[in-house]
Every structure is written in C-alpha cells, then in structure tokens.
C-alpha cells in the first residue's frame, strides 16, 4: 500500500480520470442525450402533438371526470357482475391452459434437457414469435375461429401466455441444480425419471409462483379483450365509453380496480405460502 498523500493537487495530477469525467465521455453522453431529445421532439411533431389540442383535450377530460362522479351503474349492476365473473374465469382458464401446454414445450427449449442447439433454436424462436404478438391480436384471430364470446378470450390469453411461459419455464429448468438429476441417474433412473424426480420437485414451486403471478396480470389483460369482442367486462366498458355514459364507465373502472386488487392480494398470499417470503419470482 502506498501511503495516502496529503496534498490533493498531487492526487489530482496522478489520477485525473477520477476527479473529472473525460472530455470524450462527456461529449458522448451529451450527444446521446441531445439525440434522444431530438428524436423526442421529432416524434412529437410527427405524431401531430399540439398545445392547442392538448389544452382542449385536457378540458374535455376534466369535464368527463366531473361527469364520472359519483359512479352509478344504473340498473345494469348484475350484468356487470356477470361480466366480471366472465373476466376472472377467462384469466384463470387461459393461464392454466397456457401453463399445461407450455410445460412439455419448455422442456424442449431448456439447455440441460435438449443439448442440441438445432432442436432448441427453432422451439425458442417459435415461442418468441408467439410472444411478439399482443393478446388483443390473438383475440382477433381466435374470434375468427371459435366465434365471438369469452371462449375466444380464453384461447387468446392461453396463446400469448404460452409463449411467455415457455420462455420462463425453460429458464427455470435451466437454473435447476444438476446434482439431484445426477443422483437419479446414478440410481439407474431413465431420462423421464430424471425429469420427474430430479427436476420437477425443484422447479414446480418456481413455476407455481410464476403461474400465480400471471393469473394476476392476466386479470388485467382479460379486462380488455372484450374490446374486440372476446368476452368479459371490456365489452361493457368499451360500449359505455362509446355512448359516453361516464357514470357507468367509472363504475366499471372501479370494479376492475377492486377485482385486480383482490386477485393481487390472494395470489400474493398463495405465492408466499408456496415459495416462502424470501424468494419472490417477479424478476
């Protein structure tokens, strides 16, 4: 260890980089910042932002909010409750269906199960392309197949989650400990035994946590797929917004908030019960 020098100017001379950012680095940061800001301004211009529109819009919005208070469902509260039940059912079933279908596929995408990159790569890209398409687009496609209604919503959520689960599950499987698997192999177990007794006990709690988290976030997605006609409360919401029944709109939004908070609460409790408080699966 060299003794610390008492004279700051000597330190400054010896390690200039520590006291002043280099000109090069500063210029680069400045250029990136300016570039980002210029792109932002260009975007605002290209997307036809204008102060006048913003002000009139905000005035309108304020007027809408005034009309929303107090929330009042009129006589259609039972209808809304049924629609909410539909939404929750869609989220629950869609997530489960996706998880069931994704589990075997995720094994194919995991490095420690399928070492061959030629088999793994297409599976991964396939999952990625499913994930790249939004749930609402899948809902549009499924409506063409099974018709309008909540069933199309279940299939839409299942399809888009299938991609996400495939990726998350395969990552969980890749993160599993090798030793248990080797133990099973040493005891004479086959490939399937290795998966069933070596891998599954390790990854199932993680997967269960992820599924619960997705049920939570799918409750949110399920509230909107009704906008394209795939069942649930979104249909009511879109309709009431279009006919400018603001009191009903605020009731529906309030119902969504309450339902999401309730599901959130339940699934957080369940998740902690399964995996323990220390390991939250939300990456």
């Amino acid at each position, binding site marked *: 260890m060299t003794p610390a020098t008492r004279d700051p100017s000597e330190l400054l001379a010896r390690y200039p980089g520590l006291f002043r950012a280099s000109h090069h680095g500063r210029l680069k940061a400045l250029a990136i910042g300016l570039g980002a800001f210029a792109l932002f301004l260009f*975007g605002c211009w*290209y*997307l036809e932002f204008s102060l006048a529109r913003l002000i009139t819009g905000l005035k309108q919005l304020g007027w*809408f909010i005034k009309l929303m208070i107090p929330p009042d469902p009129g006589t259609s509260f039972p209808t809304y409750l049924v629609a909410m039940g539909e939404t929750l*059912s869609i989220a629950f079933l869609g997530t489960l269906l996706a998880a069931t279908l994704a589990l075997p596929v995720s094994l194919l995408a995991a490095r420690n199960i399928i070492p061959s990159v030629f088999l793994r790569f297409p599976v991964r890209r396939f999952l990625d392309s499913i994930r790249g398409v939004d749930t609402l687009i899948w809902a*549009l496609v499924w409506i063409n*197949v099974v018709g309008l209604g909540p*069933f199309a919503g279940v299939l839409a959520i299942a399809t888009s989650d299938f991609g996400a689960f495939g990726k998350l599950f395969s990552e969980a499987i890749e993160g599993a400990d090798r030793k248990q698997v080797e133990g099973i192999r040493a005891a004479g177990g086959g490939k399937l035994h290795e998966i069933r007794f070596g891998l599954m006990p390790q990854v199932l709690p993680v997967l269960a946590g992820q599924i619960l988290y997705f049920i939570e976030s799918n409750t949110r997605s399920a509230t909107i797929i009704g906008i394209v006609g795939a069942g649930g409360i979104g249909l009511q919401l879109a309709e009431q917004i279009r006919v400018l029944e603001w009191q009903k709109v605020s009731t529906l939004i309030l119902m969504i908030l309450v339902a999401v908070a309730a599901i959130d609460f339940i699934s957080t409790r369940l998740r902690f019960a399964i995996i323990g408080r220390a390991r939250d699966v939300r990456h």
Partner: protein
Amino acid sequence: MTISLSSYPPQQIAALGAAYDAAVARKRLRFAAGLSVFVVLLIIAGLGAEVAPKAFIDKIGNFVGYFDRILNLDSGSRVWTDPAEWFWGWQKWLKLLAETLLLSYVGTTIGAVSAFCLNFFAATNLSPHPALRFVVRRLMEFCRTVPSIVFALIFVIAFGLGPMAGVLAIAIHSIGALGKLYSEQAENIDMKPLEGVRSTGASWASSIRFAVLPQVMPGFASYTLLRFEINVREASVMGFVGAGGIGQELVVAVRKFFYSDVSAILLMIIVTVFIIDICTGWLRGRLFGTGQRA
C-alpha cells in the same frame, strides 16, 4: 470383510414408520383438499367462460384453416411465391410501423421522465413526507392497474382520433409501471452515501442528486429499456381503438378478410418486435454487462 449395519430396535422403527405415515397422510390430505378446491374453481370458471370443448374440437380445423388462408394470395398461390404481391403495401405499412415505434418511444420517454420525478416521493426511505408518499403511490397504482387501451379509448374521445391519444395512454401506463419499479430500486440503495451527503448539510434535492442517482441510474435505464420493449407491443394494438400506429391497418385487414394482408402485417410486427428486443438486449448488455437482465 463383513459389513455391519447399525439399525434401530424394531419397536422404534415401528413408531418412526407410523409417524412417517401420519405425516405423509396429512400431506396427501392437504394436497387432495387443495386439488378439490382447484377442480371446483376450474368447473365454475369453465361455466363462466362458456367453454365449449365440442365446439372447439369441431372448429379447431378453422384455426389451421385460418393460417392456411392468410398464407394464400387472392390468386390462390402461396404468399411466398410472390413477395411483391404479398407486401404490396409495404411502403404504407413501414410508415405505420415507424409511427408505432415513435409512438412507443415518445410515450416511454414521457412516462419515464414523469416516473423519475415522482418515484423519489414514493420510496419509503427517501420520501419527504408519509402523506405525500401515500398520495403518489395510490396515483401510480391507478395508472398501472387501468389498462393502457382503456385510457386510449377515453383519450380518443377527449383528444380526437390519432396517435396523440395513444402516446398519452402509453405514457400514463408507463408512469405507473415504471414508478413502482423505480421506487423499489430506490428503496434498495445503500443508505451510507446518503447519510454522508446529508451530513455535509446538503438539501434534499442535492442529496438525491449526489447520493441516490449514481446508485440507481443503471437499474432505471435497464427497466426503461424493458418498458420500451413492452410498449412497442402495446403500441401495435393502439390502432384497434383509433389511437394510431399499425393496429388500425391490422384490424381492418382482419375484419374485412384481406387474408394475405393479415399475414404480411403480422410478420412485419413480429420482425419489428424481434429487432427491438435484440437491440435493447444488446444495449442493456453494453451498458451493464451481461446477466443483469432485470
């Protein structure tokens, strides 16, 4: 050489065995109870969502058939035999895709900047006042829970049709989502630098600037890039409700059964999302080294 195995006396083994059986039986009982609750929920949900296995099996052919149809041109030949005809509208679509990307960029920027300003008021360890924290947190929760497309529906009426409504919807949703992640990040900082800066008599603002920002910036940037990825996907459907971007073209193509257009637009969206994912992944890797995926 003989191997001697030490063993418990038989009575003790019997007692241990019984205890083991009891423990396993309890576990199985709990599992069975959980399973039956689960099955009941499943049935209720199935009825609620009008699940029709028969209709599904009857119509699953349509699903394959639909993909078969969207891969056919009007002339009946496969789309890839005539790319010029398949992507006949590529100039228009590319422009709309650029609009979609800009929409999510501007939305993410507005959202990130606002969330950045708000999050320090929501973090338990930094907030100047508990009441302020409570208000900011509830505000963020509201922004995050209401789906962005619902905001878009309302904004389209307030601000008129067009991308501006989409930008604002995405921005508001991003404030909620990013604000939460940012404030969690800010809650996990090392408090010692903050104490150090405070002990020099620095104000709240300058202690945030010199003690907190250097610690949280990498995490903030990483979350923002991830949010941008998500927002690109969301922006692709904003057009469904008239809030700009490529969604408008897609919904028209689906509803009017312009089959080959549907596949062309879908392919373009998927490729764009891929490219954005790769670029942001690369950027994250460059900024923070590998393995720091938030």
